[in-house]
C-alpha cells in the first residue's frame, strides 16, 4: 500500500500540496536573494530555507547548501523546547548556538511558526551564513580559537519578534557584537522578511485545503521519504562496514586525527556509529551533533540513485550513535567553526568509505578538500579590503561509471556559487593572476580517473604589506581512491619571494605578504575508481593527448608503454 493511501489523504491534494511546499521554500530563498543586504551573502548565496511540520521535521527544502539541511531540525527543536508553551502567532525565533542545536556561530537560523485555528501547524525557517559574527577574526574562521567564546556571539534560542513586533533591543544586542553591524541588521531583516513571506503562503494553503488535510499531507510526505529511503537501503548489501578518514591535523599539533565510523546496514535500516571517534580537540575542528547528523544525511543522499526525497522522513531509518565529548559530538566550550566546511567533509568521507562495500556502484572516490584563504590589505584607493580565494576548487572523485569532474571540489557543497572572474579580481584588488590551468596528473589514476585540480598563480601587487589568513584541509591526507583506484594528489600552496619559497599551511594566519610575492595554489585532484590498468585505451589515449596524464604517470599507474 502506498504511503498516500495509508494516511487517507487524497492523492490529488497530496501531489499539489507537496509541490506547493517546495514552491514556498523556493520563494523564501528567492526573497532572501532579493533582500539580503551584505555583498558577501548576496554573492555567495550561502543560505537555505525549509518548511517543517509542528514537530520540526523538514517536509520541504529549497535545495541550496546541502550541509544546512539535515542540521536545521535540531536548531528548530531546541527553539521549540526553549519556548515550550510560550510561542505565539507572529513570533520570530532566532538562534545560532552549536550547543543549542546549531552548527557553527556564523549560521543564524530564523524561524516563524505558522498558526492556524489556534495551533502551530508548520514552521518556516531560513539559515544564512553571516559575513561576521564577532570573535577573534573577521569572518569567524579562527584556527587559534580554543573556546567557543573566541568564535563570536552565541545566540541561544531567542525571540527576535513577539506577536509580530520586532525586539529592537535584541537586534541591537546581536548586531553590536559583530564587526559589520549594518550588514548584520540588513541580512537578519532579510531573513525575517523571507520567513514571513513563507508563512503567508502556507496560510493560504490552510485556508484552501483545511489545516487537518495539510497536516495529513505533511505526514504522508514524511512517510513517503521514509519509504523511499527504506527501499534504497534494502537495495544495498547488508552487513557491517567500517570507514575511516583523517583530518590533516587538529590545528594544534596533532596530525592525522581519525574519524572512524561503523555502518551497520540491516535490510531497510542502518546504524551509523561514531563512538570510536577520538575526544574533541582544542581547535575549531570539532563538530556538534547537529552538524554530524547533517553530514550523515548528505552522504546517504549522495549515494541514493535517481530522485531523492529530500525531507526528514529519510532520517527515520538512519540511526546515529555518538559519544558526548568526542570530535563528532563536542560539548561546550569546544570551538566548532571548522565543522561545516572542514571536519564536515571528513565525516562525509568516512561514511562514504564505509558504504563502498555496500554500494559499490554508487560509491564515490575522494573529493578535494577545502583550502581557502583571504588576503587583507589596502586597495589602489587606499581603502581596506578582504579578498577571498573562491577559485580553483580541486577535483572530484571518480565513480564506477564516470571520471570525476575537474575543478568542482569539496564534498560538503560540490560546485557551489560560480567563482568570480579573474578580471573582476584584478580590477577590484591589487592582485594580478599569472595563470590558471588544469594540474596534470593530479587526478588519482583509475579505471575512472579522478577529476583534475588546478594551478592558480597570483601576484600580490599591493603598495604596502598585506596579510594572508588560511583555513583549510587536504595538504596531508589525499582524496582517497576506491576499488583499486589511486588517490589524488594533495593541495600544495606556497609563496615565492625572491629565491625563497614559503609553504602556506592550512591553518596559518597572519602570514605577511610583500609586494611582488607570487602565491601558487596547486589544488588537489579527486581520487580514482577501479584498477587503472582497466582504463579504456581510448580514454587513456585521450588523457595523454590532452595532457591530463603525463607519459610518465601513464607508465607508472596505467602500465602504458
Amino acid at each position: 500500500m502506498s504511503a498516500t493511501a495509508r494516511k487517507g489523504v487524497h492523492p490529488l491534494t497530496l501531489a499539489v500540496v507537496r509541490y506547493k511546499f517546495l514552491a514556498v521554500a523556493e520563494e523564501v530563498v528567492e526573497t532572501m536573494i532579493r533582500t539580503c543586504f551584505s555583498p558577501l551573502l548576496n554573492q555567495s548565496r550561502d543560505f537555505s530555507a525549509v518548511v517543517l511540520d509542528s514537530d520540526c521535521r523538514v517536509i520541504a527544502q529549497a535545495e541550496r547548501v546541502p550541509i544546512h539541511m539535515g542540521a536545521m531540525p535540531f536548531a528548530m527543536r531546541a527553539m521549540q523546547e526553549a519556548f515550550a508553551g510560550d510561542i505565539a502567532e507572529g513570533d520570530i525565533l532566532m538562534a545560532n548556538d552549536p550547543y543549542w542545536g546549531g552548527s557553527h556561530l556564523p549560521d543564524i537560523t530564523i524561524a516563524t511558526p505558522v498558526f492556524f485555528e489556534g495551533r502551530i501547524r508548520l514552521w518556516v525557517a531560513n539559515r544564512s551564513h553571516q559575513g561576521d559574527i564577532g570573535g577573534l577574526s573577521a569572518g569567524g574562521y579562527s584556527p587559534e580559537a580554543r573556546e567557543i567564546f573566541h568564535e563570536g556571539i552565541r545566540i541561544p534560542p531567542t525571540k527576535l519578534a513577539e506577536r509580530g513586533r520586532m525586539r529592537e533591543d535584541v537586534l541591537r544586542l546581536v548586531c553590536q557584537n559583530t564587526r559589520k553591524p549594518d550588514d548584520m541588521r540588513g541580512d537578519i531583516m532579510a531573513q525575517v522578511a523571507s520567513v514571513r513571506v513563507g508563512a503567508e503562503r502556507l496560510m493560504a494553503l490552510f485556508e484552501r485545503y483545511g489545516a487537518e488535510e495539510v497536516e495529513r499531507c505533511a505526514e504522508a510526505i514524511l512517510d513517503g521519504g521514509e519509504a523511499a529511503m527504506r527501499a534504497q537501503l534494502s537495495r544495498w548489501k547488508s552487513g557491517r562496514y567500517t570507514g575511516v578518514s583523517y583530518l590533516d591535523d587538529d590545528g594544534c599539533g596533532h596530525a592525522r586525527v581519525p574519524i572512524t565510523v561503523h555502518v551497520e546496514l540491516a535490510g531497510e535500516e542502518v546504524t551509523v556509529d561514531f563512538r570510536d571517534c577520538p575526544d574533541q580537540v582544542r581547535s575549531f575542528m570539532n563538530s556538534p551533533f547537529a552538524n554530524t547528523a547533517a553530514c550523515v544525511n548528505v552522504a546517504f543522499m549522495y549515494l541514493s540513485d535517481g530522485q531523492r526525497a529530500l525531507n526528514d522522513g529519510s532520517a527515520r531509518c538512519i540511526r546515529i550513535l555518538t559519544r558526548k565529548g568526542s570530535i563528532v559530538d563536542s560539548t561546550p566550550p569546544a570551538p566548532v567553526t571548522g565543522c561545516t566546511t572542514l571536519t564536515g567533509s571528513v565525516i562525509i568521507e568516512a561514511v562514504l568509505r564505509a558504504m563502498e562495500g555496500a554500494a559499490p556502484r554508487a560509491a564515490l572516490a575522494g573529493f578535494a578538500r577545502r583550502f581557502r584563504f583571504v588576503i587583507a590589505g589596502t586597495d589602489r584607493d587606499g581603502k581596506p579590503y578582504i579578498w577571498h580565494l573562491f577559485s580553483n576548487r580541486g577535483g572530484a572523485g571518480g565513480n564506477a561509471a564516470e571520471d570525476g569532474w575537474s575543478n568542482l571540489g569539496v564534498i560538503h557543497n560540490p560546485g557551489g556559487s560560480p567563482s568570480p572572474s579573474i578580471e573582476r579580481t584584478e580590477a577590484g584588488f591589487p592582485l594580478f593572476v599569472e595563470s590558471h590551468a588544469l594540474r596534470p596528473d593530479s587526478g588519482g589514476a583509475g579505471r575512472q580517473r579522478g577529476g583534475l585540480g588546478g594551478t592558480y598563480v597570483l601576484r600580490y601587487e599591493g603598495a604596502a604589506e598585506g596579510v594572508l589568513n588560511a583555513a583549510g584541509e587536504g595538504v596531508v591526507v589525499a582524496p582517497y581512491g576506491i576499488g583499486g583506484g589511486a588517490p589524488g594528489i594533495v593541495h600544495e600552496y606556497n609563496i615565492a619571494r625572491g629565491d625563497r619559497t614559503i609553504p602556506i599551511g592550512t591553518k596559518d594566519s597572519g602570514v605577511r605578504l610583500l609586494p611582488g610575492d607570487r602565491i601558487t595554489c596547486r589544488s588537489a585532484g579527486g581520487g580514482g575508481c577501479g584498477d587503472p590498468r582497466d582504463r579504456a585505451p581510448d580514454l587513456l589515449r585521450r588523457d595523454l593527448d590532452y595532457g591530463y596524464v603525463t607519459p610518465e604517470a601513464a607508465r607508472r599507474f596505467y602500465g602504458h608503454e
Partner: protein
Amino acid sequence: MRIGVDVGGTFTDIVAVEAGGRLHVAKTPSTPEDQSVGVVQGLGQLAEACGLSLQALLRVTTLFIHGTTVATNALIERKGARVGLITTAGFRDLLELREGTKADRYDLREPFPQPLIPRPLRVEVRERVRWDGKVEQPLDEADVQVAIAALRERAVDAVVVGFLNAHRNNAHERRVRAIIEAGAWQPYVSLSHEVLNREGEYDRFSTATVNAYVGPGLGRYLERLRSRLAEAGLGVPVMVMQSTGGALPIDQAVRHGVGAITSGPAGGSMAGALFARLTETPRLVTCDIGGTSTDICLIEGALPLERRQTEFRDIKVAIPALDITALGAGGGSIAKIDASGILELGPESAGAQPGPACYGRGGTLPTLSDANVVLGLISPETFLGGRMRLSRGLATQAIETHVAAPLGLSVEEAALAIMTLANTRIAEGIRACTVRRGFDPRDFGLLSFGGAGGAHADAVARELLIPKAIIPREASVLSALGFLSSDVRHDFACTIGRAIPALRPADLADAFATLEAQGRALLREEGFAEQDIRVTRLLDCRYHRQIFSVEVRAEEADLAAASLDWLGRKFEAAYEHLYHHVHRAVPGFVDTCRVAVFGRLPPLDLPRAARGDDDPAAAHRGTRRIYLGDWMEADVFWFDALRHGMVVRGPALIDSASTSVLVNPGSVGRIDAHGSLVIARESAA
C-alpha cells in the same frame, strides 16, 4: 506581403500578412536534414492558400523574417564546427575549468560536461593586458603565427580569439584577426570582445566559443536558403530572428551565430509584446505550453523583459536575450508514482516519439495529454485539425495502469490529479518568474498559446488570481507572427568600470555617442532612414564589491543633464525595486554601457472586427462530456466561427485545429476585436 517563418522541431509554421492586415497561415512538417526544403514546401502551401504561384507570392513579399533551430540543434546535439582557441599564455584551460559549478549538487555521478573546444585545440600565445587596459606584455606575433599554423594543421573550421581584459583593450584580439586575414587560410573568426564587450573572461570566451561553434553551420544553411529563395523569386533580403527578439540580415546573423540560439521562443515573446499593445495590457505573462516544456516570459510596458545570460546544458551564453524560462512540464510530460508513493509529473517526456499513449505510436506511459483526453478536454477527433486521431482507450489504459490503480483512484480522478498538478506546476513557475523580478502576478494578464495550453490557461490564471487569460486566434503559429512584429536590432557595449562619483557627465555621453554612432551607421547601411531608427541606452550598475548588477535606463534628457545625480537616483530606485533596500551612503559603480539600436520595420497591425451579436450559437458544435470532479456536459464551440462580442460561459470548450480551450464553470470567455478569446471570472466579467 510580409512573411514570418518559424522552423520548429516538428512543424514549420508560416504566417503571411497582407498590407491590409489579412492573415494567411501554413503548417508543414519540418525537414531536419535541410530545413530549407521544408521552408520552401511551406511557402508553396501558403502560396496556394493565397491563390498565388510561389513566384508571385515571393515577388510581392516586402519582408521575410526567419527563425531557425539550426544553431540551437548544433549546440544541443554537439554537432557544431571544429573550433580552435587562441588565448593568453597561462589561461587555455579556463573553458574547461568553467566557473567551478555544477547545477545538481546531489547527483555526483553525472558525466563531466566536455568543453566545446578540446584541450589540444586551445593554443596559448604570449600577450597580456592589465585590468586598466595597459599592456603588460605585448602580443608575440611569432607565437600567433605558430598558433595559426597549429590550428590550420589540425583542420579547425573556426577560430576563437579570447584574451584577458580584452574588454579594456582589444588591440591584441584585433591584431590576431588581421594576421589571420593576411594569410591564405580563412577560417570563421570570432573575437571575444566583439561577441561580448564586457568584463568576465569566462562569459566572453564561452560566448565567443558558442558563436564559432554554431556560426559556420548556420552560415551554410542560410546560404542554401538564400539561394533557394532567390531562385524561387524572393527579391528582398532574408532577415534572421535573434534571441533578443530583433532580426538581423543574413550576413550579420552568420557573424553573430550565437544570437540565433533560442530565437524560436523569442518569437512567442515578441507576439506577447504585440498582444500587450493590441489588448492594452502592458503587463502580460506569456505561457507557451508545448509538448515537452512550458516557456514563460514577462512582458512589461509592452516589451519583453531581457536577461544577460543563459545556461545551455552547462554551456554559458552571456549575450542579452529575452528572459524566457522553460519549465519541464508539457503535454508529453510523463506522470508517475515516485519513490515516495506520490504522484509526480515529468521531468521525463514522451516527446514526439513515441509520444503520449493516446497517439497510438507505441507509447504506453501516461502523459498530461493522455489525462486531458480522458477528461474530455482534448477532442480525439479534432486534434491537429483531425490529421491525427487520438485513442481515448490507450490513454485510459496508460493512466489506469500507472497512476489510477497504484493510487486506488478511478481513471478520471487520476487524470484530474495529473491535470491539476500540471496547473500547479505551471502556476508556481509563473509565480517564481514574477517574484524573482519583484512583481506580483496579480498585476499581469496571461497570454496562452502552444498546442497543449488551452486546457490550462483559465485554471492557471485563476490559481494566480490573474484577472484575464488571453488565447489569441493565431495561437498555433504565434511565434512566426511574433517575428513579424520585430525590428532589426543591433547591440553594442563598452566597459566603464568606474564609481559614479568618479564619472563626469561627458564620460557617459561620449561612450553612448560612440556606440550609438556605430549602430546608426550600420542601420543606414542597411537602408534605414534616420526617422526609422530608435535607440535604447542601458547602464549595468552595482555596488563596488558586488557581483550582480542591475540595469539602469539612460534617456536622452539624462545624458544632456549637467550632473549625474539622475544616475545615482535611478540606480537606487532599480536596486530598491529588486532588493527592497538601498545602501544610501555607498556610491554606485558602473560596469558597462550598452546600446541597442532598432531599425523600425513597418508595425504589424491585426485587423479589428466590428462587434456583433453576443450569442455564440452560430459557433456551437454540440456538447462533450468532461470531468472536473464530476462528469458534466460542456458546450463545444468552434474557435474560427466565434466572432467579436460573442460570450461563452463555462463549462465550455472551444476547439480549433491547434488546441482546445477549457472555460471552467464560473469563468466566462469573450471574443475581442482581434478575434482573441479572453477568459475572466464570471463575477469580474
